[in-house]
């Protein structure tokens, strides 16, 4: 037990868990009959799954020291291409059976996600340009491409399997939550157990060191952008299953929520740091705040301000200057405590 608590990484996980539970109790107590219901849990976790997968797509890039602003655009493009195949709008004459359409549609979505990653990776790793600039330009490209395919309209309707994914539960747990959990387990495996994960962290912490230890920065970056594209495509399918409609400009604000989740998970604070586990917990934390705000009916302006303030607060709390002050406070509290005990 002492070893578990003593580990600094574990302490962070435990404090995140505590924050989440406390938040849930506080926010739930404002609206107990609405908040603590199975229905609210299910709708919350469905939303959470969507943000969570986008956050994962962001995390993959943030770990290696970059940033991906194109995840939502890629997700929409992948979902639009995949969805068009599923509904027979593209290749409808060749693939007739619904099952085949579904499978080919999923494949198309994933392939498009990975290809978009190759494009991003080529510009960032191959040409050595800054990730923020490149991904904001490719975001425009992908959104534009989606606009061309849909001609500016929404494509309404989804095959049964997809809409079931977005609405049905397994033993009271939404399928989407299970899907997100699966993605997090894959990410946990990749970043904790494989050589690629270690290379990503090393690249984020020190690119020169990664190059000198015999790894190719180009290959590592390329792979991480492909993985990010893959997760984005899955995020797109999740959005599709929730909305049962496809739009080129859906969910643009999700990018900053995803960044908030990744930041809270600690990926930005330490270069190459951040645990998948912590991100999964902070996801719940953010979702609880978000649901609480929705239940109390606050405006978009208030919500954005709270997100922004939270982001800055998390950033500042992790800086050495503030950390020192915090630990000094803790030290004072500890020194005072035994005195009190003696007096009693």
């Amino acid at each position, binding site marked *: 037990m002492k070893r578990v608590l003593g580990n600094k990484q574990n302490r962070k996980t435990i404090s995140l868990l505590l924050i989440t539970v406390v938040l849930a109790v506080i926010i739930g107590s404002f609206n107990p009959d609405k908040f603590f219901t199975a229905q609210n849990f299910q709708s919350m976790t469905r939303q959470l799954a969507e943000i969570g997968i986008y956050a994962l797509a962001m995390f993959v890039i943030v770990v290696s020291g970059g*940033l991906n602003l194109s995840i939502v655009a890629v997700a929409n493009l992948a979902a639009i291409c995949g969805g068009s195949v599923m509904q027979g709008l593209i290749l409808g004459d060749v693939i007739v059976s619904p099952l085949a359409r579904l499978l080919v549609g999923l494949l198309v979505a994933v392939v498009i996600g990975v290809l978009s990653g190759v494009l991003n990776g080529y*510009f960032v790793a191959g*040409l*050595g*340009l*800054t990730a*923020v*600039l*490149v991904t*904001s*330009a*490719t*975001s*425009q*490209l*992908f*959104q*534009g*491409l989606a*606009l*061309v395919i849909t*001609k*500016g309209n929404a494509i309404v309707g989804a095959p049964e399997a997809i809409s079931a994914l977005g609405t049905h539960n397994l033993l009271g747990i939404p399928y989407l939550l299970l899907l997100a959990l699966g993605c997090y387990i894959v990410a946990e495996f990749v970043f904790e157990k494989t050589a690629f994960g270690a290379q990503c962290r090393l690249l984020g912490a020190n690119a020169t060191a990664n190059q000198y230890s015999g790894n190719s920065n180009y290959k590592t970056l390329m792979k991480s952008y492909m993985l990010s594209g893959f997760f984005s495509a899955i995020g797109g399918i999740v959005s599709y299953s929730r909305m049962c409609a496809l739009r080129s400009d859906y969910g643009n604000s999700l990018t*900053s929520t995803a*960044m908030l989740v990744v*930041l809270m998970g600690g990926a*930005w604070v330490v270069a190459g740091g951040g645990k998948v586990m912590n991100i999964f917990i902070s996801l719940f934390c953010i979702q609880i705040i978000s649901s609480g705000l929705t239940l109390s009916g606050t*405006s*978009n*302006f*208030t*919500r*954005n*301000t709270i*997100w*922004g*303030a*939270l*982001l*800055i607060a998390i*950033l*500042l709390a992790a*800086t050495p*200057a*503030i950390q020192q002050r915090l630990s000094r406070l803790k030290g004072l509290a500890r020194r005072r405590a035994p005195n009190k005990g003696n007096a009693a």
Partner: protein
Amino acid sequence: MRKRAKINDMTIRVVLFLLILTVFAIIEPAVLSATNVCSMINDSIFNGIAALGMMTVMITGAFDLSSMSISMLSAFLTLKFYNIIGYEGDFITMFLIAGTFGALIAMINGFISQKFSLSGFVVSIGTNLIFGSVFFIFLRSSYIKTDAMPQTLLKVRTTAILSLQSSGGTAANLNIGIVVLVLTAAALWLFLNKTQLGRGIYALGGDKVAVERVGYDPMTITLIAYAVFGACVAIAGIYFYSNAGTFEPGMIADKGSDVIASAIFGGCNMKEGKGSVGGILAGVAIITVIKSNLILLGVPVYYVTFTVGAMILLGVLFSTLSEQRLQRNRGR
């Protein structure tokens, strides 16, 4: 030798600009008509001023996502300020007041990132959300109608420094805003290249440790760079909203991607602290030529985003590859 390399980088952009313009003019001769040339120049004003500000921050090695919120917020505060003192406004004080607001707001970003040695980019994600919304929480409406705007500011749209009457009867007006762009560019060029502080901004992007050793105070330099950035973006913002005639927070949001695109085309590179006024102006020219002419060329509206995105990436690919080739030749 260095001087020659600089000319070459610049030449690539000018050649690219002329190439695009020529291709467009061959497809549709109306591209070079007086009306269209004037409207292209008018389109470039907002983008140009904002991109110059963006460049100043990028030279220091940071990047700021909150440019459009700062722009919107300082324009809003300026308009409210005029409303409160009951003044109809004039062209000179509006830029000065907006510029001051913008500089002060942007310095918050600079201060936080420098004081706690955080990445300016991550800080700006948070402040972007705050600046964009905090003042509207307590207001009943975030919208200012045309009647409620300071009336003199609305004249920005119609005031021209040059007006050509073409044979077809349509007038080609060169908007007064171009004067602001030229003045901003000239002032910024002088500041960055001829003053000690300006050289310090370049130095900060090159090597943070060296800057301190030479005797500059990194905090001062960062704050000044952010102030210049805020002032430029705010001037662009008040120009945009006066020109539009109404105020609504969301109007300006999708302009941000053009500013970033111009900075990319202009050869800004945060990694090495590179960027020049000339490069940015060339980048703005390229983006404007592409963006304003697509409709004239008969491209359907829903193709515009895609085409602009594709051209940005192709342009960046082209200029980066040719720059790399230049460097390799020099190395030999």
